[in-house]
C-alpha cells in the first residue's frame, strides 16, 4: 500500500496587499468596528475588498449625508472615532453637510472617499470633484493619498488628528488606481494616535484662581469641551468649591446633573431666564470648553457686562475670538478644572446662592397646556418619563430641539446628541442609528420635527436593514416651526413657506416594515410611548402637537441676553 505524503506547503510569506485591503486593514488596526458608507465607481475596489475584512461591520446607508451623521452619532455616543465611506463626486459632496456638522461640534470622524484615478484627475472626469478643495473649511484636516504605500500611515494619521486636541472630522481621499495598486502591509502601529490631556500653564491657573477667589458672583459656563474631556467630576468639584452656579451651552447639557442644586440650566437664545440673568449679573465668569458663539452670547457688546471672563479651551484659536478675556487658559477642560479646584478653598457665597435659588424657575403649567391636546413640552416630558433613565436622546434642529433641551432633564453626561453649531436639519434619525450601532444595548430616542424628519426619513431603510430599534418621535405641527415662530415674532407675522405637509407617517413606516403610531389625543400619548419602548424594532411616532406653540424664552436676534422675552401669560 502506497502512502502519498502530502508535501508540506510553505506558509504564505508574502504580505503584499491591494491598496483597498490596506484601507480596511488600517481601519481595523485603528479600532474601527463600524463604518457607515455607500459604494460607487471610484470606491469599487474598497467594496471588493470589504468581505475579506469582517472585523469592520459596514452599514449601508441610503444617502451619504446619513453616513456622515451616523458616524457623528456613533462618535458622540461612544467617544470613539466614527468612520464613513463614500465614492467620488456626488458621494463626497453628499458627505459635506455631515462633515460640517461634525466640524462645528468638534466630533471625531474619519471620512474615506474614493477619487477618480490619478491620470483622470483635473480632467473633469465622470464623478470627479475637487474634494480637498471643497472640504477645507469643514474638516480639521484632509489628505490626498498619492501612493499606495501611504495608505496605512495616512489613515492612522487621520485617526490621530481627528482625536487630538479639539476633535474634528478628517477626510482621506484615495484615487481608484491607488486602491488597486499593491504594496507591502505595514506592521500594526504600537500607538494608533492616542494623546495625553493637554495640561494648563500654572501661571495662568494662578491668575484665574485669584480672580475666582475674589469673586462675589462667580458663574461657570460649561460647554461641549467639558463633555469631550469627560470632566464632569472635575466640573462638579470646582463648582461646589466655589459655590458657583453652572450654566451650560446646548452641547454642554448633562455635564452637570440637572437635579444638582448648582445646575442653572442652559443659557443663550432659548436658555432659561435664570441662567441668562446669572451670567448678566456675574462679576467673574469661567467659561470652559466653549467658543462663546452668538447663540450663547446674544449681542456681544452687552454680554456679561459686569464680568471679567476666564476662558479655558483646548483650542488656542478660540481664546479672545468672540469675547474679551481677562485670563486665557489653553488646556483640556479636565486639566483646567482640576488645576483651578486645587488652587481654591471651599467658599460659601450665601447671598449669591440665595439670589440663584430665588430666581430658579418653578415648574408651572400654562393655561394653554390645559386647553390643548398635546402641548410640546408635555410631550417631551412624557418621552422623558417613558424612556430609561440612561437612554440617549438625539434631537433634530428647530423648536423641538429647544423643547428637548429645556425639558428632557439629564442626570447623566453624554446622553444628549444634537447638531448644535451647524444646526443641520435631518440629523436626528441617522445620528440615532449611528448611536444605536455604537451602543447596541442602550435605548435611543430620536426627536424630530416634521420638517427635519422628512429630510432623512429614508434612513428608516437603514434602521430596518441593521435592525436598530431606534424610536423616532416626530413632533408634527405642520410647520417649519422655528422659522414660523420668527416670522410671527420678527417679520410682522408674514407666514411665508413655512406650512409644510407630511406623508401619512404610519403608512410610510409600514412601507418600510417599521411600527408606526399616530398620537392625536393626550390620553393616547403614554400608551403609545410605552408600546414604542416595548417594541423590539424601529418605531415612528407621529405626535400631532399644538400647531402654533412657540419656544420661550427667546432672546430677539441681535438683542442682548438680558432682553430676553419670557412666555406671555396665557
Amino acid at each position: 500500500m502506497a502512502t502519498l505524503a502530502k508535501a508540506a506547503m510553505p506558509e504564505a510569506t508574502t504580505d503584499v496587499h491591494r491598496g483597498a485591503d490596506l484601507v480596511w486593514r488600517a481601519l481595523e488596526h485603528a479600532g474601527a468596528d463600524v463604518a457607515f458608507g455607500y459604494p460607487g465607481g471610484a470606491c469599487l475596489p474598497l467594496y471588493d475588498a470589504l468581505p475579506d475584512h469582517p472585523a469592520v461591520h459596514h452599514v449601508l446607508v441610503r444617502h451619504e449625508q446619513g453616513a456622515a451623521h451616523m458616524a457623528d452619532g456613533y462618535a458622540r455616543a461612544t467617544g470613539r472615532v466614527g468612520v464613513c465611506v463614500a465614492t467620488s463626486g456626488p458621494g463626497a459632496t453628499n458627505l459635506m453637510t455631515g462633515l460640517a456638522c461634525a466640524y462645528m461640534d468638534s466630533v471625531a470622524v474619519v471620512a474615506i472617499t474614493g477619487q477618480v484615478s490619478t491620470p483622470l484627475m483635473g480632467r473633469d472626469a465622470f464623478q470627479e470633484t475637487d474634494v480637498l478643495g471643497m472640504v477645507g473649511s469643514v474638516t480639521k484636516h484632509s489628505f490626498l493619498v498619492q501612493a499606495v504605500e501611504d495608505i496605512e500611515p495616512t489613515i492612522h494619521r487621520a485617526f490621530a488628528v481627528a482625536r487630538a486636541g479639539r476633535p474634528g472630522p478628517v477626510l482621506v481621499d484615495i484615487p481608484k488606481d491607488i486602491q488597486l495598486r499593491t504594496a507591502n502591509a505595514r506592521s500594526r502601529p504600537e500607538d494608533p494616535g492616542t494623546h495625553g490631556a493637554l495640561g494648563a500653564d500654572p501661571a495662568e491657573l494662578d491668575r484665574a484662581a485669584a480672580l475666582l477667589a475674589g469673586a462675589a458672583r462667580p458663574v461657570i459656563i460649561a460647554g461641549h469641551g467639558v463633555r469631550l474631556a469627560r470632566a464632569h467630576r472635575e466640573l462638579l468639584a470646582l463648582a461646589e468649591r466655589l459655590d458657583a452656579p453652572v450654566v451650560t451651552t446646548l452641547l454642554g447639557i448633562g455635564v452637570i446633573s440637572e437635579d444638582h442644586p448648582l445646575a442653572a440650566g442652559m443659557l443663550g437664545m432659548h436658555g432659561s431666564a435664570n441662567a441668562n440673568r446669572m451670567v448678566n449679573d456675574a462679576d467673574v465668569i469661567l467659561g470652559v470648553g466653549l467658543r462663546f458663539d452668538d447663540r450663547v452670547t446674544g449681542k456681544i457688546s452687552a454680554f456679561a457686562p459686569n464680568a471679567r471672563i476666564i476662558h479655558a479651551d483646548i483650542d488656542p484659536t478660540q481664546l479672545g475670538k468672540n469675547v474679551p478675556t481677562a485670563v486665557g487658559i489653553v488646556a483640556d477642560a479636565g486639566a483646567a478644572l482640576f488645576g483651578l479646584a486645587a488652587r481654591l478653598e471651599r467658599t460659601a457665597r450665601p447671598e449669591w446662592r440665595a439670589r440663584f435659588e430665588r430666581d430658579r424657575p418653578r415648574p408651572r403649567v400654562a393655561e394653554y397646556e390645559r386647553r390643548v391636546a398635546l402641548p410640546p413640552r408635555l410631550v417631551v416630558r412624557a418621552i422623558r418619563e417613558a424612556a430609561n433613565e440612561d437612554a440617549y436622546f438625539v434631537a433634530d434642529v428647530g423648536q423641538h430641539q429647544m423643547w428637548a433641551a429645556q425639558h428632557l432633564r439629564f442626570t447623566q453626561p453624554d446622553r444628549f446628541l444634537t447638531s448644535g453649531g451647524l444646526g443641520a436639519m435631518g440629523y436626528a434619525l441617522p445620528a440615532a442609528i449611528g448611536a444605536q450601532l455604537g451602543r447596541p444595548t442602550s435605548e435611543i430616542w430620536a426627536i424630530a420635527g416634521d420638517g427635519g424628519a422628512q429630510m432623512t426619513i429614508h434612513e428608516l431603510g437603514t434602521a430596518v436593514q441593521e435592525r436598530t430599534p431606534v424610536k423616532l418621535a416626530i413632533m408634527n405641527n405642520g410647520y417649519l416651526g422655528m422659522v414660523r415662530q420668527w416670522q410671527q415674532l420678527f417679520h410682522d407675522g408674514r407666514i411665508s413657506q413655512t406650512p409644510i405637509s407630511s406623508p401619512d407617517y404610519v403608512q410610510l413606516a409600514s412601507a418600510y416594515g417599521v411600527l408606526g403610531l399616530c398620537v392625536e389625543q393626550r390620553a393616547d400619548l403614554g400608551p403609545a410611548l410605552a408600546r414604542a419602548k416595548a417594541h423590539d424594532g424601529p418605531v415612528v411616532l407621529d405626535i400631532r402637537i399644538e400647531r402654533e406653540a412657540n419656544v420661550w424664552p427667546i432672546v430677539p436676534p441681535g438683542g442682548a441676553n438680558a432682553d430676553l422675552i419670557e412666555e406671555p401669560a396665557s
Partner: protein
Amino acid sequence: MTEAQHTFELSVDAVPGAIERVLSVVRRRRLGLQSFRADAAGEGRWTVRITAGAVPKEAALALSQFASLIDVRTARLNEDDRGAS
C-alpha cells in the same frame, strides 16, 4: 494716523490642500490681503509670505489659526507700522 501692515511668514508642508487651508484662514479672518506668495523651500516645504492690512486683533487671531494648521510648521508675524496721513 497709523495704518498697520502685517507680514506673515509660514513654513508649510508641500502637500495637497495645504495652501487652500492657509487661504481659508486669510478669508475667514478678513485679513485685507495685499499679496500672497508661495516658494518652494526644499525638503517638501513651501515658504508662504502673506502681506495684509489687518487690524491687530485679527492679525493675532490669524497667526494663532495659521499655527494651529497641521501642515504649518512655523508661523511668524512681522508688524510694520506705516505712517499714513
